[in-house]
């Protein structure tokens, strides 16, 4: 896991796909490929009402990325300072070994260049002190750009707030 994490608040996500469109717009991704995807799962009845979950699937930027190990040319790289995994397109030969290796379907095939490309957490934006396009553009601020430990605190805070909602404050 890189030192970054995109936290998705299921309660806030409405499955509108703005993340996908902001990502594609920012990265000029042609039709057919997507660096991130919202996968709706449901509806499933819970307490009498059909509920749905929207699973956000960017690249997870693994600590030990299968795609990097699989790449024969060194095109797929993990940036040492922060763990962002990205493709050096000048080295990619289009062998698709990374596509085979990744369990999450993250590396994408660019039919226009015959190379692989993928989510790099918008590293040019990160380097400028900004956030990835999917996070910045998210309609309901369901996506948050945090560190893995911040994500844990966010979840704990939400849970604490939920179980005490309506309780008198001291």
């Amino acid at each position, binding site marked *: 896991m890189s030192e970054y994490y995109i936290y998705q608040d299921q*309660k806030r996500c409405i499955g*509108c*796909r*703005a993340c996908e*469109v902001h990502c594609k717009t920012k990265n000029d991704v042609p039709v057919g490929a997507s660096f991130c995807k919202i996968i709706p799962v449901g509806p499933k009845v819970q307490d009498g*009402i*059909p509920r*749905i979950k929207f699973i956000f699937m960017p690249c997870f930027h693994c600590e030990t990325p299968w795609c990097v190990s699989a790449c024969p040319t060194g095109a797929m790289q993990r940036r040492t300072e922060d763990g962002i995994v990205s493709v050096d397109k000048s080295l990619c030969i289009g062998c698709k070994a990374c596509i085979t290796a990744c369990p999450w379907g993250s590396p994408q095939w660019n039919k226009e260049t015959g190379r692989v490309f993928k989510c790099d957490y918008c590293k040019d934006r990160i380097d400028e002190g900004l956030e990835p396009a999917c996070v910045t553009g998210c309609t309901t601020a369901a996506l948050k750009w945090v560190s893995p430990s911040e994500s844990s605190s966010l979840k704990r805070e939400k849970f604490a707030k939920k179980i005490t909602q309506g309780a008198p404050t001291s």
Partner: protein
Amino acid sequence: MSETSKKVVYSVCSMCTVRCPIEIEVENGAVKHIWGNPHVLGGRFLCPRGAAGKVFENDSERLQGPMIRSGERGSGEWRKATWDEALDYVAERLKKVIETYGPESVILGDRGGAFTDLQKAFIKALGSPNYFNHHGSCSNSVHNAHNGLTGQRRNTVSYDWKNCKYAVLYGRNILESIGTKEAKDFIDALENGMKFTYFDIRWNYTAAKADRFHIIKPGSDYAVNLGIIHTLISEKLYDAEFVNRWVVGFDELAKFISPYTPEWAEKESGVPAREIVAIAHEMAEVKPAVILYAGWMTAWTEDDYYFRRSIYMIYALLGGYEAKGGLLFNKNEVDAGYKPLKKFVDLVPKVDKKRFDGVGWKYKHLSADYGLAQMVPHAVLNEDPYPVKAFINYRFDPLSAFPDPEKFKEGLRKLDLLVTIDVNYSHTGWVSDVILPEATYLERTDSVIVKSGPKPSLWMRRKAVEPKFDAKPKWWILKQLADRLGIGQYFPYNSVEDIIAFQLQDMGLKLEDFNSKGTVSLAKDQIMWDRKDGLKFKTPSKKIEFVSSMLEENGIPSFPPYESSKEPPDGFFRLTTGKTAVHTQGTTLNNPYLNEIQPENSLWINTAEADKMGIKSGDTVEISADGVAQTIKAYVTDFIHPTAVYTLHGYGREIPLQSRAFKKGMRDNTLMKGLLTVAVGGNCPITDCFVKIRKLS
């Protein structure tokens, strides 16, 4: 390589008619990204349609220059023309029509909204009273219902989501048919503990987040509301002080409501009586911090008007006007202490002629701000009340938006002139004589608009990039036509800077004031009116008129007995339609990124009904009505009322030059035969469309 040139332009989106404030990043003269305007929204969030503005701008499958038809209307045979040629063509024919039949034989339709001043000025300057917009297939019933009760249209009030504790939504799929700020506000409200009840004829993403959710019998929302009102009144849960001060006709309502018990409403709608009572109790407990969503696309049924009235009557009973967490009056520049923003339409002398659509004489309770677009074919075909011979169609597409496009087209074919001004190909543009391409919202500056609200401000749409093709801004097109028609004096400008200077001249503001944030705030804080004496209802009584003088004077009862919505005949289903977050009806279907996400529509059918016909999800079915048949893929689900089927509106585009959307999915409005009618609210009863379904092998 030369240095990269970068700039940021604040503007107003036009990918749909919500018109969100945007921040456009421009690099080397091209759009780099479009975000929400953080100075207005508090962040750069923007819905997927807004984000797809960049690929729209770069797409070549949109209008590229003036076109004059070279074949029959609708044949798709066009020749390219120069601007002078196309403008002369339009002006000459308009002149001839006006000379022969009078100026009222020219009509102008658009999509309504904030940027209408110039087109209203144009048609008025020609001497015609006939401005209308798309609301006959959209929000006419809710606008006119609020107008009858309070003397002002729906959008003179807004919802205070920030402080709302309880909301009720009726078929308003607020989390799929989204406006950026509203969706965000709604989710924020949920996070702040707001509870909400949702009624619809089917499940959707909004239902998925509801605290209470009921699939109700189509068209029975009004019955549910009557049950709620019955509970509020019989249990004395209403705000008596507010009602005494601001309501006319409470006793008549109390008398009217007596038979409509929650038990009665249960029989009508399928919602258990105890639930209706519980909802009324939940509202009353937190009143007035209650929002009942009055609707946006409300052209549903014949009696939609009375349903929308019932929503606003519940607000009145809860004391929900100018109330924290309920409805807040929208204030304008004058309320904020400024002189009015000047309008071009006010430079033109009043036109004292009868309208083509009956508004103001046949339909005195309906507003001329919207008119009745559905009357166009009738007026043209029957020359009733007089000949209508030319239609200036500004970014409006009745052949996509209104029922029965064949009938509509029959009317359009009989015109002497149909001219379409648009940025996209449209079904109506395709049967026009001339298409004048407008510069896109990213390529043009429009007039300044007042964004009225509890905290009013001024907004403007500003050019970010040069037009990619041979397209021109609206102000230029209308000025060119005006000069050719001898009405140039009403358009006293030569540049968009002149327009802005004219508009702002009395306000002590200038164009540069918009540079840093894209907006000019007119009030430091929310302006709140005094709930005891300061509420500005514009009815004759200056109160909320449950017994509406506007209706009664025109022989229309304020409280007609409830009538059940029509049941589909045996073997038929009611066709209902809706929207998704990634499309604006038909206009974005060809957008490369949005088309990719949702290229086709499908038909929702209830599982039990589908089983009877042997239909499974993914099967191709035929859907037909009155001799029109279409095919579509079925989606079989438990979560739709068995008497209804549902699909996304706007698909099945028939313009070959839109290659991605061409013939993808089913064009719903073709099935809505015979529905170009005027219900009491001024709406077409769009969901009174009954269809047959058949599995294709």
